């Protein structure tokens, strides 16, 4: 056992830190820090800079543009990126559809899609959830019927995040309604968003923002060569994708940055007894959150080191579960620092309530999502109970 990074590991980290803090434009990182990212431009700009350096998709197989990094190196990459407030590579591309195409797609699909996916020339979105298929994803009803050289897709998807910027969508659709097990009749298809028959309807969220959509498919004709892997094997690919998605949601470095903001703002918030950070009741909550965050960081380092054959350890459910709880705890703390200044929203800088305080409550409300998406925390507990505890 050794806690310290080796000289090589430390040099690797320092290189990345230097790159992230000097090569990604400062205004983009500032907007990430303040929660005012400009979509899609900031994400595209950052990902292309990372890709030019060959570090946008290090988790992909080497022959597809990935890096032969150890789990610790990947962790350092992710941590440093978050600590530097670099927009992370678009998850739908880098952690979801990219790895699926790399692992299960044909040579043609790989050549056609992977370079553009890594460079964010294609912006992907996710067509998984449906109104009647949330946690029970295998009950998807959207159908894809083979007709000559095409599949014809009909149905409805929902919770499609950032679909308004998307060029392409990856879709789970039922290709065999008579399969003995419903999981066995699902396929993984790729569709261009401009295909006739696809329409998008925005869903406004409780923070007033617009980031998710419903996507409707009406006789959407997709060339059959846009099927990934085997027909009716989509569930296997979906599970692979979901376990990758799960690991990415811990966001420990980001939560660290936010906690530092909480402290800084609390230290500048006067109360009748000093500053808010001097208040032992408030300080104890911050200290608890910091401590759990370090415990989770160590757990992540342990778990990532134990991944076998690139398959995520089922213990990665801990990361999603606890990581989302901590993100929520910190957004809650930030609202509590803002206090009454959290009440105004979009009021500009004409009033005394600073912008960060005006953003605090919408962010808190928005982040209720993290214990729901990527497999609800209850689903993660079921995974732990069945896979790890044998219950």
């Amino acid at each position, binding site marked *: 056992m*050794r806690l310290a990074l080796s000289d090589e590991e430390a040099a690797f980290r320092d290189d990345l830190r230097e790159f992230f803090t000097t090569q990604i434009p400062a205004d983009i990182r500032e907007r990430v820090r303040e929660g005012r990212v400009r979509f899609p431009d900031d994400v595209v700009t950052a990902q292309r800079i990372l890709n030019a350096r060959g570090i946008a998709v290090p988790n992909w197989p080497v022959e597809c543009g990935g890096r032969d990094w150890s789990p610790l190196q990947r962790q350092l990459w992710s941590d440093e990126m978050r600590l530097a407030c670099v927009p992370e590579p678009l998850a739908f591309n880098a952690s979801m559809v990219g790895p699926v195409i790399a692992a299960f797609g044909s040579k043609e699909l790989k050549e056609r899609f992977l370079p553009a996916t890594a460079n964010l020339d294609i912006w992907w979105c996710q067509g998984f959830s449906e109104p009647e298929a949330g946690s029970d994803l295998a009950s998807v009803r959207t159908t894809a019927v083979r007709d000559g050289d095409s599949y014809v897709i009909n149905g409805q998807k929902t919770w499609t995040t950032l679909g308004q910027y998307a060029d392409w969508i990856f879709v789970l659709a039922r290709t065999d309604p008579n399969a003995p097990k419903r999981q066995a009749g699902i396929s993984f298809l790729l569709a261009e968003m401009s295909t006739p028959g696809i329409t998008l309807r925005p869903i406004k969220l409780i923070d007033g923002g617009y980031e998710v959509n419903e996507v409707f498919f009406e006789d959407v004709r997709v060339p059959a060569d846009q099927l990934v892997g085997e027909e009716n094997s989509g569930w296997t690919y979906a599970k692979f994708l979901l376990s990758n998605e799960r690991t990415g949601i811990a966001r420990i470095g980001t939560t660290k940055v936010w906690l530092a903001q909480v402290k800084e703002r609390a230290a500048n918030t006067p109360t009748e007894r000093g500053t808010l950070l001097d208040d032992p009741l408030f300080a104890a909550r911050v200290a608890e959150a910091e401590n*759990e965050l370090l415990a989770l960081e*160590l757990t992540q380092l342990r778990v990532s080191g134990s991944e076998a054959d690139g398959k995520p350890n089922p213990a990665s459910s801990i990361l999603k579960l*606890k990581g989302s709880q901590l993100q929520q705890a910190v957004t809650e703390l930030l609202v509590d620092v803002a206090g009454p200044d959290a009440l105004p929203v979009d009021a500009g800088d004409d009033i005394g309530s600073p912008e960060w305080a005006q953003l605090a409550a919408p962010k808190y409300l928005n982040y209720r999502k993290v214990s729901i998406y990527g497999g609800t925390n209850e689903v993660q507990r079921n995974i732990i109970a069945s896979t790890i505890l044998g219950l």
Partner: protein
Amino acid sequence: MDFDLTDEQDLLRDVTREALTQTYDIETLLKVGDTELGWSREVWAQLADIGILGLGFDPEEAGQIELMVVLTELGRRLAPEPVAQAALIPGSVIAELGDDQQRALLDEVAAGQTLLALAHQEPGMRGLTTRVTTRAERQGDSWTVTGRKNPVLSGDCADVFIVSAALPEGQGERSDGSTAGVGLFVVAADAVSRSAFRTFDGQRAAQLNLESAAAQPLGAGGDATAGLLKALIRHQSALCAEAVGAMEEALRLTTDYLTSRKQFGVPLSKFQTLTQRAADMYVSLELARSMSFYAAMSIADGNFDPVIAARAKLQISRSGRHIAQDAIQLHGGIGVTAEYPVGHYAARLTAINQTLGSADDQLYTLVGGLGSYGTVSL
């Protein structure tokens, strides 16, 4: 960075686990716990034979990682043998600060023939503090100590005590000059009066009444605050490691029970309200394990940091309380009976929480430095 045990450490874990598994089932544990000593001399001799009672006395041979590995196994089996408190922790102080003659004692400790105790805790003391009211006095070349120490873990059976006592003015100041130093003294059992008692988790301890008790300065004497703090930090890490073993076993007992116990015609594991809670216990366990590693790995790197000790103990306290309470609740009535082990694990975890500072005491330590850094890091 590396979280794997070496082959030797793996072996140490297996040997310890094997020895204790063969020795302790719940009936044996209850029987041994009822004896006056509260633990088994036979098992003690066995632990000495496999080299556990001298672990770390030679820092070249073993260190805090080995100590952690052994303590986790003791915790898993709820073994009452006072390995850390009667041998390894006070032994580490002698190994570091003692003179040749005092260090000779360590061979007897490692062989299981002599029991030690660190007599530091005093009424009103919480957390990892080195401030004491027990006084040391000097007359010519000889020293005495006067004060009250309570609770002293293994104080009932110790042959030799390491006693902390405030030094008189001019006899060793703290390096920062803030206050008179604290010395460490070797005091023989026959120089003290002690009131032995049981603790609620079935262990043994004592109050020591020291009235001008003959005392020999440890090593060269003078201020030993730094050495004392190191011992307390070692002990905190050992307690964390023990707690992780206890939590792991409490969870194992619980999941076993959920799959075997039937109600409404089905195993309890069919009820999601129970399995979801078991999953949360697992999360608590893994966070605790990570922090136990953190504490031990830091010490192994030579970093004796009270903040890291507080971090580890805070997580262990939270996780230990959660797992202890839910392990009992998920068992139902059997969980609160003396004949079934899970309640004893809960008692031990509760006792660990109250040793060397509660969760709140750890928070006080952490809150103090909160504004001195931005992003928290390892």
